[in-house]
């Protein structure tokens, strides 16, 4: 993830959120996060476009990021 963040950080923001953080409790339900790791991809306007349960692999995530930036 660190390598991917280094490659994409100019175009995509990477945010880490701890599920034990009580201040994000509603977000877990909103985006159906039932386990870790989980990833939610937002577009620049704040619309959740994709939810990953588990790590899908860098190629798949890269494909979604590329599609989102087009």
């Amino acid at each position, binding site marked *: *993830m660190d390598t991917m*963040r280094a490659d994409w950080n100019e*175009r*995509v*923001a*990477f*945010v*880490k*959120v*701890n*599920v*034990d*953080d009580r*201040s*994000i409790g509603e*977000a*877990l339900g909103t985006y159906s*996060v039932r386990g*870790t*790791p*989980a*990833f*939610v*991809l*937002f*577009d*620049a*306007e*704040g*619309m*959740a476009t994709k939810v990953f349960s588990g790590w899908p692999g860098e190629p798949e*995530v890269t494909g979604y*990021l590329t599609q*989102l*930036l087009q």
Partner: protein
Amino acid sequence: MKNSRLDVHDVANEPMIGRARKHAVRHDGKGLEFMIRTKWKQGLGTVALGLVLAGVAGCTRPTDEPTVPEVDSGPGAPLSEAQDSATEEALRQIAQATNDALREADSEPAPTNAMSIQGTPGQATATMQDGDGDGSATEDAGDIDAGSASEETDDADAFAPDAPDASRVALYEPTWANSDADGLVAAVEGRIGRPALIWFHADW
């Protein structure tokens, strides 16, 4: 002994007019009765004619009479002549004041403190600069044949729209901390300025 012919002559000597007298002579012994009946009919006819004329006059409205809407100036009070004349006077004064204002506005020179127009025809360039130097805009105004127009102001907020400018909203830069809850909120609100990938993780 009276006969009917004498009666007729007696009746004929009575002061009668027109057809009543003629009929009285013609109908023996019944002249008076006929006269009364005729007079009665004439009276009825006159009354009927009067009623008909009155009805026609009541139903007929002069076409040249203007239709004026009723103005309720009080509980059932019609507009008096004094009120009518006062209204006309007020309207006349308003029209006069409007004409004076328009005439005065036409005679005043254009304000020069907001925008100065200079140059010659053909220099169709309008330049607007911000007083605080945070940006400037240059616009090619091809349809302006008066020359170039330059506007300067000390307060750029005078041009600020009422709605907040989305480009002026402070963007949030994620920290890559262990739990960046503010980054999550900023991503949801679209305040990061680019797509965001949120990684939900746990320490255990």
